[in-house]
């Protein structure tokens, strides 16, 4: 997950650099008084590269898919819900002295 996160941050940085280049390009066009038809080719390439990095991060960072079949390899262990119906309190820890008694001994 760390690598995917770094790739995602890198992709966002590339996109913001492309945005900055486009802002400067528009400033240049205003000086030369031309119409804005589209960003220059290197900005488009940069956007494509940032897009690819972000797609890769979007597919790896959120986590893996888990199989929903109950009999597949990774679903072998069945976990009971952790609610009060399944909790057991009648075990051998009752052989320990009470905590109150141990604190009073200090």
């Amino acid at each position, binding site marked *: 997950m760390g690598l995917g996160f770094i790739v*995602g941050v890198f*992709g966002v940085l590339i996109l913001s650099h492309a945005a900055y280049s486009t802002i400067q390009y528009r400033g240049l066009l205003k000086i030369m008084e031309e119409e804005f038809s589209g960003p220059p080719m290197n900005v488009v390439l940069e956007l494509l590269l940032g897009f690819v990095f972000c*797609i890769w991060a*979007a597919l790896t960072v*959120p986590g893996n898919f888990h*199989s929903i*079949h*109950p*009999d597949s390899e990774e679903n072998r262990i069945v976990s009971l819900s952790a609610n009060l119906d399944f909790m057991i309190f009648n075990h051998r820890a009752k052989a320990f002295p009470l905590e109150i008694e141990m604190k009073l001994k200090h």
Partner: protein
Amino acid sequence: MAGHGDSSSSQKKSSEVMNDVPTFSAENLQNNMKVIYYSRTFMSIIGGVIAGILGFTGFMGFIFYFLVMAVTSIGLIAKSKFSVHSYFDSWNRIILDGFMGGLMSFVLFWTFAYDIVHIF
């Protein structure tokens, strides 16, 4: 019962009603839906920023959104190693889920980026 469940989806169609209705792990399905939701939301935001930078206005922007969502769907299907039925219970989930919510985020970041790059 579903011992060969991870093989091609055409095999699943004949025994689909018998197998998928009573038994699948809902907790894992919910986890998979969460993963799809996060992926789609992030890609909607990134798609919005790119559409704003490229200067799309009007209909072209929505065409671009469908394009980004199609690429994300293909990426998600590839991530599930093309055996969609071992991770989801229907095709609609992996293709259509999160579409409308992502549209809102897309439009928000699209107008945001367009304003920053082209107007100010």
